C-alpha cells in the first residue's frame, strides 16, 4: 500500500471507524512500514481525544469506585496466588533436577550431559519445556534418551517473560507432577530387581552348599565303611595269625 493510501486512513482510524479490511491494512502498515506517518496520526489521535471534554461531565457513584477496587483486589489476589504456585512449581523442578544430578554413579554415567551444559538449576528448570518433553517420554530409571541436544535446544532459546504467566504455569503444573511421581516408581522397580537378584544368588548358594554337604557326607561315609572293612580284615588277619602261632607252638611241644 502506498504512503498516500495510508495517509487517507489516518483520520478514520483515529476516529475508530475503519472497516475491517482497511483496519487490517492499517495495522500491517503501522507495524511494518518504516515511513509510517506517526506524527500526523498522533495529531489526529490527540484532536479526537479532546471530544469527550465537550460532554456534560457525569461523576460515577462511590459504589463504582468500591467495585473497581474490589475487582482489582481480586485480580491481585489471583495474580499473587498464581505467582506462588509458579514459584512452588519451579522449586519442585529444581528439586527434581537436583535429584537427577545427584543420582549416584549409575545415573551420572547415563546422563553426563546434564553437567556439561553448566546452567544453574533454576535456569535449567525454566528451560525445560514440559510441553515438549512429556513426562511419559522421560525414561526412568535408565535416562537413556536424555541427551545434550534436547537440553541445549531449550537453553538456547531466548527466555521470554510474558506479562501474563498463566499459560506457562498451567502448562508446567501437570507435567511436573507426573514427572516427579515417576521417580519413586523407577526407584522401586530398580530395588525390586536388586532383591530378586539377591534371592536368586542366595538360593543358588544354598543349593551348592547342600550339594557339597551331601557330597561330603557320602564321601566320608564310604571312607568310614572302607576303614571299617579294613579294620575287620586286619582283625581277622591277626586272629588267624594268633591261631596259627598257637597251633605251631603246640605242634612244637608235642614233637
Amino acid at each position, binding site marked *: 500500500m502506498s504512503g498516500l493510501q495510508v495517509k487517507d486512513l489516518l483520520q478514520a482510524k483515529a476516529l475508530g471507524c475503519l*472497516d475491517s479490511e482497511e483496519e487490517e491494512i492499517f495495522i500491517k502498515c503501522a507495524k511494518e512500514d518504516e515511513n509510517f506517518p506517526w506524527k500526523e496520526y*498522533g495529531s489526529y489521535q490527540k484532536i479526537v481525544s479532546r471530544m469527550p471534554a465537550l*460532554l456534560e461531565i*457525569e461523576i460515577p457513584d462511590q459504589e463504582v469506585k468500591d467495585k*473497581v477496587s474490589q475487582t482489582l483486589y481480586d485480580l491481585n489476589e489471583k495474580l499473587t496466588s498464581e505467582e506462588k504456585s509458579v514459584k512452588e512449581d519451579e522449586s519442585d523442578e529444581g528439586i527434581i533436577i537436583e535429584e537427577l544430578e545427584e543420582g549416584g554413579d549409575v545415573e551420572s554415567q547415563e546422563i553426563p550431559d546434564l553437567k556439561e551444559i553448566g546452567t544453574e538449576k533454576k535456569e535449567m528448570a525454566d528451560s525445560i519445556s514440559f510441553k515438549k518433553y512429556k513426562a511419559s517420554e522421560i525414561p526412568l530409571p535408565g535416562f537413556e534418551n536424555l541427551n545434550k541436544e534436547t537440553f541445549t535446544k531449550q537453553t538456547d532459546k531466548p527466555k521470554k517473560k510474558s506479562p501474563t504467566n498463566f499459560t506457562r504455569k498451567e502448562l508446567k503444573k501437570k507435567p511436573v507432577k507426573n514427572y516427579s511421581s515417576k521417580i519413586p516408581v523407577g526407584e522401586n522397580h530398580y530395588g525390586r530387581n536388586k532383591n530378586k537378584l539377591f534371592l536368586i544368588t542366595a538360593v543358588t548358594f544354598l543349593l551348592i552348599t547342600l550339594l557339597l554337604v551331601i557330597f561330603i557326607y557320602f564321601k566320608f561315609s564310604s571312607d568310614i565303611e572302607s576303614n571299617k572293612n579294613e579294620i575287620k580284615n586286619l582283625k581277622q588277619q591277626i586272629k588267624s595269625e594268633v591261631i596259627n602261632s598257637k597251633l605251631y607252638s603246640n605242634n612244637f611241644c608235642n614233637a
Partner: protein
Amino acid sequence: MEDNKIITDTQIMSKIKENDSKALEELYDRYSPILYTLIKKIVPDQTVAEEVLADIFVILWKKGKSFELSNENLYTWLIILARNKAVDRKIRDSKLKELPEYSDDFEDEIIIPKISKSIDPVELSKVQAEKEKFEGAMNKLTEAQKYVINMAFYDGKTQGEIASELNIPQTTVKSKIQVALSNLKINFVLGE
C-alpha cells in the same frame, strides 16, 4: 485537586508500574468522571457503563505496566481505550454485528490503542482549560461534518455503515471524515 496539579500523569503511571495502588486510586479520582461520561454517551445503560469503567482500570492495572507510557500520552491513551472498549461492549451486547472472540490478542490489537510517540503529551487539566477553544474549532465545522464525526466516534459506526445508513456513497463518507478531521485540527491550532 491541589495534588492533581502537582503530580503529572507520567509520575502517576510510573508509580502504578511499581504496583502502587494509591497511585491508581489517584488516577481513578482524576479520570473516572471524564471516562464515565464518555462511556455513558456510548452505552447509556448505567450498569454496563460502570462495568466498562471497571474494565478500563483492570486493563490499566494488568497491562499498563508493559506499555511504555512515559513517552506516550496517558490522557489520549485512556480516552481512546475507553471509547474502543465501550463500542466493543455495545456491539457485543446488541449482537447486530459479529465480532471476533474477545481474547487477550484481540484486546492487545484492537481495544488497546497504539498511541503515536511523536506527539507532545497532553494532560486532562490542559484539555479542560482549552475546552472553549476546542468547542470553537468544532463549531466551525459544517453540521454534516459534525454529524459524521459523532456517528463514527460515539456510535461506533464504520465508514461503510455510515454510508449505508445515510444512503450515500462510501467515498463521500471517507472524504467527509478526512476533511472534517483535518479542518478540526487546523481550526484548533489556529484558535480564535
